[in-house]
């Protein structure tokens, strides 16, 4: 069992409250996932030509500033780092690929939790309320966020095995369920150049969707292809640069509820997580149909 939540703000006036609402939603799913929790927040865009990485190190006293200094010296670019518990948000005036390659070559013990122009990913073992507090999620502003509370069934409980899983720029996935063909699919994806960080089945799903989109599929096409290729139970919520998407398998035995008002769209495993959202008493509340892709995007 796991809990998943997502919140997408249509009304810009609510953006200052994103962290507060997604935190309450995440804590609302504690019963479904007390092992670990994670959240991806879309906010604070970096300027064009820059990239943003959320990094994690087992050692909370890891010297992030020294690492950023080395990166700046060796790559000859400006960088900055902001530390939150065992996570750090690194911004660098360099393309994502160059920064990722440098990190892989020089800091093999640093884990990349997420990267992109907007997305920051914080995830850790422990109760959702502690994960939220340690990373200061409640104070965060932004347009949208997704989150996950984990009760592990398929792989061990570590920070790396927690959700959300990132597999592309500004893209991440949370999953409630379990996949039965993830080993074979992992090998299939490895042969197509995808690199894996854990043995978690949900990471396979994240990299599967990223692979499909890298091959030219739209978000909807990638998710519909997943209905054929992913064998198992799932309710997925995927965060993207400008919105989020929800998909359940054809049997739909993992729960999901959607709610929408003029101001926001929210997704959760159970209604309990939506109970504090402003105006929820008058929201349209419904259960997403099996095997149907639901998406919401910011209007630019």
């Amino acid at each position: 069992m796991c809990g998943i939540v997502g919140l997408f703000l249509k009304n810009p006036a609510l953006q200052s409250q994103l962290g507060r609402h997604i935190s309450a939603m995440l804590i609302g799913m504690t019963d479904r996932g007390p092992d670990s929790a994670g959240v991806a927040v879309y906010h604070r865009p970096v300027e064009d030509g820059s990239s943003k990485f959320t990094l994690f190190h087992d050692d909370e006293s890891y010297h992030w500033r020294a690492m950023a200094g080395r990166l700046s010296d060796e790559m000859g670019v400006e960088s900055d780092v902001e530390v939150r518990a065992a996570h750090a948000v690194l911004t660098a005036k360099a393309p994502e690929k160059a920064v990722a390659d440098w990190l892989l070559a020089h800091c093999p013990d640093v884990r990349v939790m997420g990267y992109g122009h907007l997305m920051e990913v914080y995830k850790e073992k422990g109760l959702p309320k502690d994960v939220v507090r340690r990373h200061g999620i409640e104070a965060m502003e932004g347009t949208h966020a997704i989150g996950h509370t984990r009760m592990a069934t398929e792989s061990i409980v570590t920070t790396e095995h927690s959700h959300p899983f990132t597999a592309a720029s500004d893209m991440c996935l949370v999953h409630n369920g379990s996949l039965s063909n993830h080993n074979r699919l992992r090998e299939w994806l490895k042969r197509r150049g995808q690199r894996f960080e854990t043995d978690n089945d949900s990471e396979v799903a994240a990299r599967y969707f990223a692979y499909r989109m890298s091959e030219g599929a739209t978000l909807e096409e990638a998710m519909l292809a997943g209905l054929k290729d992913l064998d198992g139970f799932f309710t997925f919520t995927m965060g993207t640069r400008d919105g989020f998407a929800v998909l359940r398998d054809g049997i739909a035995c993992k729960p999901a509820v959607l709610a929408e008002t003029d101001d926001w769209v929210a997704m959760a495993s159970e209604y309990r997580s939506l109970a504090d959202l402003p105006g929820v008493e008058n929201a349209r509340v419904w259960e997403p149909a099996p095997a149907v892709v639901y998406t919401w995007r910011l209007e630019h």
Partner: protein
Amino acid sequence: MQIVDLAQSNVRTLNQRLHDLPRDTNERAWRILNPRGAHAVAVGLNLAVEIHVEGHVGYYCAGMNKEATVVIHGQCGWGVGENIMSGLVRVTGNASQAAGASGHGGMVVIEGDAGPRCGISMKGVDIVVGGSIGNFSAFMAQAGNLVVCGDAGDALGDSLYEADLYVQGKVASLGADCVEKKMTPKDAKTVAALLAKAGIKADVARFRHYGSARKLYHFHVDHADAY
């Protein structure tokens, strides 16, 4: 009128109070405030009280209900009125999966839409849905009536034993051994009576009747290769 505010109390205390009511109680009218998606609100009731839940509830609301009337003024999660024995459970909004699952008697009314598996394994309950129902509804249903004013999702009545399914709108597909049957005057009377009892208006003449082909009851030697 007994008023219980779940923002001040909790579900366990509420349910215990309801279970402790003597059969000759005068406390027959209840309002439950601020359910906020809580699970198992008003489950296991076994006497004729009337309960109004003001807001959205989580899983299994009014499960195992006997004699009581439970009205949920909002939306509800999985398994509303599951295993209902008698009485009435009404949802004014939408219901999630497995509404009225394995119900033996009484009535479950969903004024909005019901999700997948509505009436799964129903054993005598009457279920009336004002909107549409999701996939796999009435799976392995054994007895009772399911009346749907909107559409039905895929695999309606899969592996149906008995039970009568009446759908006014489109049926996406029928499950194994579920077939369309004749809508007899007796069926029309049944549907009219159930709609009236549920307080839902619909044109009985537009309903179609589905039921069991009874071909899965016994082992059939021609199917041996399929096992």
